[in-house]
């Protein structure tokens, strides 16, 4: 079939907008190349000792990769902003969930350590 651009359709909600957005092929290929490159970078970064930063570097790289997938492969960048709002809201809720659970879990760690020191016999 010949290439037909997605055409804007008639009056009504969504008028003047095209049916989806056709992401240029070189953008898709570029994003793929960047994702593969970042995979190599994240493996290389593991071998550098950054102390406690290693985890955050790895998470940062993963977040950049995820953002590229969402913005271009999932064409979130070109979509109605409501889609992005829904997605970002879900991420925020996960952040709140994990964050508060972590605060709670950290709060009783000293108690657990104390209990372990009392109950685990040294030398066993």
């Amino acid at each position, binding site marked *: *079939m010949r290439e*037909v*651009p*997605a*055409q804007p*359709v*008639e009056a*009504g*909600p*969504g*008028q003047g*907008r*095209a*049916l*989806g957005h*056709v*992401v240029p*092929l070189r953008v*898709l290929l570029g*994003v*793929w190349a960047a994702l*593969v490159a970042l*995979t190599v970078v*994240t*493996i290389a970064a*593991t071998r550098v000792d*950054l102390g406690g930063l*290693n*985890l955050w570097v*790895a*998470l940062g790289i*993963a977040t950049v*990769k*995820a953002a590229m*997938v*969402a913005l271009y*492969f*999932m064409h979130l960048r070109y*979509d109605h902003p*409501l*889609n992005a709002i*829904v*997605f970002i809201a*879900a*991420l925020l*809720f*996960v952040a709140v*969930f*994990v964050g508060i*659970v*972590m605060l709670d*879990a950290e709060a009783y*760690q000293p108690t*657990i*350590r104390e209990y*372990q*020191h009392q109950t*685990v016999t*040294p030398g*066993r």
Partner: protein
Amino acid sequence: MKGEAMLPAVRSAAAPADTAHPGAPRVAHHFATPVQQFESAQLGMWLFLATEVLLFGGLFCAYAVYRAAHPEVFIYAHRFLDARLGALNTVVLVSSSLTMAWAVRCAQTGRQRGLVGLLAATLLFAAAFLAVKYVEYESKWRHGLLWGRYYHPAHGHPAGDASGQAGTGQAGQEPANASAPGDERPMAAGPNQSPATIAAGAGPPSRGGPVTLGGAAGPGATPPAEATRIAASAAGPRGLAWHLRRPDSGRHDEPRNVQIFFAVYFLMTGLHGLHVMAGMAVIAWLLVRSIRGHFGPGYFAPVDLAGLYWHVVDVIWIFLFPLLYLIHG
């Protein structure tokens, strides 16, 4: 075509008879325009993806809690995962995302052959991902690296003096296993040790007292490079790593509760794997429909929405890979 679009047409899924007009927009009666219908479908899909994010969010939360509470377990156990296989699977899944996004583009631009070919390629990449995952799971299963009370590492028991003979026997078998193609070896960035050395602490004599943490961590001892990677746990509260050793493991370097890591690993990768399978089913269905010519510039919502789902599966793996395979320690 545009005239048809305004008619209250038959619903898409129930209209395979529409092949006479491939790609003709079909609008359900409660939508005014194809764009409204398409954007509503997209919003619905994004809502579903939000629930997926929350579903995996629970598991990421479990990961965070256990990793914060037992860093030594994660540092110790992640080396039983093969980062090369993990990296391979990352590239495979990222490539499948590319072919999926490209397939959507082909549907949008009316390239029938491209659509069919790229959907098939996506399906093949997904199958390759599961094949690699099978190799990894099989290796875990064989070595008893499982969750909860099923965690019984095969090399752990023979390390005692009485069964030392059996221990060397097992360790002797190990190189044969390790050299088998596709076999999984723990990733060790530094001087590579055989799986047996790490797992059993009963490696070839040339290695000389492999990962004996107890000795290496002693005052004044200069630990070998490999051991320092494990010893990070000793930096925690005094004596933590050594206090919490599994009493029956017979290994000097193994922290307690290693099964937690494998429970987290199998839950996260297992749920992700189920999502890959579900995605494959959907893509196979799309493949059949695309061969029948159901999709075109005016109607490609199913391809697009399945693509969104597939990319979320990819995004989740993008986080799983560094969190499980690339722990620095």
